[in-house]
């Protein structure tokens, strides 16, 4: 396994269900993501994109094949090991998944709070820094309830980046947004990730945003389709 690759997947297969209901959703997938690389994953609905993302994101147990993230083998890893690894992986969801009872600033600080070596003040400054970076300095103390869809997704980006991840996983981050806002959010995501030299794996259906990627990966029926990239 190559230690310098951010993500290295080798012969990854995954099944859901048991007995007669058992269905294979990933079939011997192999892919790599280099540090700082922005990779876009597309494919029809139900082809297994989210499943692949959750396996790389250390959210699921690997059943067969190798998944190495930052050089850590995830096949056979324990719950606690996966939880520690997740601290270095930023995740942006289709829904924003912000904590409803926290303000924008506090939500972002929940990300910064994962950095153990920083003081409270430093972590709060981090939170403010990232909210400014996503253009929300005027909305620090607003609850998610009072923010628009695009603003909420920006808070989610700020929260993901505040934990200083080396890998960012995004699953259809623009699905709930109109096309203009979606474009803005993706541009922002790409720009900030590049500034941090953070690798990105983004799932999207949206053909208009393919130009932000370094590389495009297509998937169908649990397999990767070789593309020119």
């Amino acid at each position, binding site marked *: 396994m190559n230690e310098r690759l951010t993500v290295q997947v080798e012969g990854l297969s995954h099944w859901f269900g048991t007995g007669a209901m058992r269905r294979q959703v990933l079939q011997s997938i192999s892919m790599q993501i280099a540090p700082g690389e922005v990779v876009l994953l597309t494919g029809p609905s139900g082809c297994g994109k989210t499943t692949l993302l959750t396996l790389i994101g250390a959210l699921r147990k690997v059943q067969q094949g190798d998944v190495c993230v930052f050089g850590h083998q995830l096949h056979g890893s324990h719950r606690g090991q996966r939880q520690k690894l997740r601290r270095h992986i930023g995740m942006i969801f289709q829904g924003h998944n912000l*904590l*409803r*009872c926290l303000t924008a600033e*506090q939500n972002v600080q*929940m990300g910064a709070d994962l950095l153990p070596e920083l*003081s409270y003040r430093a972590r709060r400054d981090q939170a403010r820094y990232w909210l400014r970076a996503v253009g929300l300095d005027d909305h620090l103390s607003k609850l998610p309830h009072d923010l628009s869809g695009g603003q909420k997704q920006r808070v989610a980006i700020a929260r993901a980046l505040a934990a200083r991840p080396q890998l960012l996983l995004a699953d259809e981050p623009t699905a709930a947004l109109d096309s203009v806002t979606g474009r803005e959010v993706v541009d922002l995501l790409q720009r900030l990730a590049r500034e941090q030299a953070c690798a990105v794996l983004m799932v999207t259906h949206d053909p208009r945003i393919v130009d932000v990627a370094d590389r495009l990966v297509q998937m169908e029926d649990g397999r990767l389709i070789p593309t020119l990239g």
Partner: protein
Amino acid sequence: MTSGFWQGRRIPLAWLLLSRQPLRLMVALAGICFAGILMFMQLGFRDGLFDASVTVHRLFDADLVLMSPRSMSSISMSGFPRRRLVQAMAHPDVQGTTPVNWNFLLWRNPETLKTRSILALGFEPIDPLFTDPELAAKAKSLTSRGRVLFDKRSRTEFGPIAEWFEEGRIVETELAGKRVRVTGLVSLGPSFGADGNLLTSRETFLELLPSTPPGSIEIGLVRLRPGADPEAVTRSLKESLPSDVQVFTRQDFIDFEKNYWRSSTSIGFIFSLGAAMGFVVGCVIVYQILYSDVSDHLPEYATLLAMGYRLNTLMGVVAREGVFLAVMGYVPAYAAGQGLYALVRSSTKLPVAMDLPRATLVFSLILVMCMGSALMAMRRLVDADPAEIF
């Protein structure tokens, strides 16, 4: 040390979860507060009852007390021969004795003319009865027949005796169907067994209750010479006296009465049960609140797990919610308890007061209630699956 605190400081998630849902918080606090008040009242009544059952018992000027073995409590006293006190005097350590008659008589309220049962103690006015030194002077007035000293802390149903007496009026009424006059006031206090008390001479007592055999008394007070060992004298008196009399030390006499109310009646059980009900109701409410709180926020908890927070951290959040609820629910319950105790004292004259052991006990129960519920609600957290949130 402070830098460590600031280093470790986090977003107060538990507090924000509670405070940003004011309606849910209010319901939870109302439930805890209700449970707390119920526990305060029930336990207060229980302890107050046990204390009140011995208001008079505590006042006697005695080191040992003789009682008939058939006497079960202050409300069912049997007599024993007065001679036993004379025999007790033969013991070298016994310095003095007081024979006391003890029974309930019907008192007619001179204002409303209604009758009510009152505890009457008959003693020789020259004998010491209570440790209170003021009684001796007042007792002199009892040497005439048909005179009583009325307990001014008796319940108001006996009539405005104290007021009338202090106004200088001559207060006369009917006791056990015979005319008596109040010649003084004493301050004893009502108990669960007796709503009011009065003192009179044995001579008057026997006149009011002619059925009492002349040589029979209900309790005998025994005073020992200074330095004598009450336990040792009790033992030797038990041996020398016939079995128609029982010997108690002063403390055993008090405990005997308390024990009666505690065990021979279901009063203690009923009040403890009442407190337990409050506890259970509180548990159900807090559990419901915390469980639905965790359920409502399950996707958010799953998000935190996906971000790399530990399950233990999230359990800590729920536990802290429990602690906050306990503290915030206890404070108003404590304040309300104080107020209600004052109300009970003024309307029933029961010695119910907030004391540290009970305040601590109720707080512990509320804490157990909240933490137990939090622990149960945490089981729901296991359903937060970070793989399912994409």
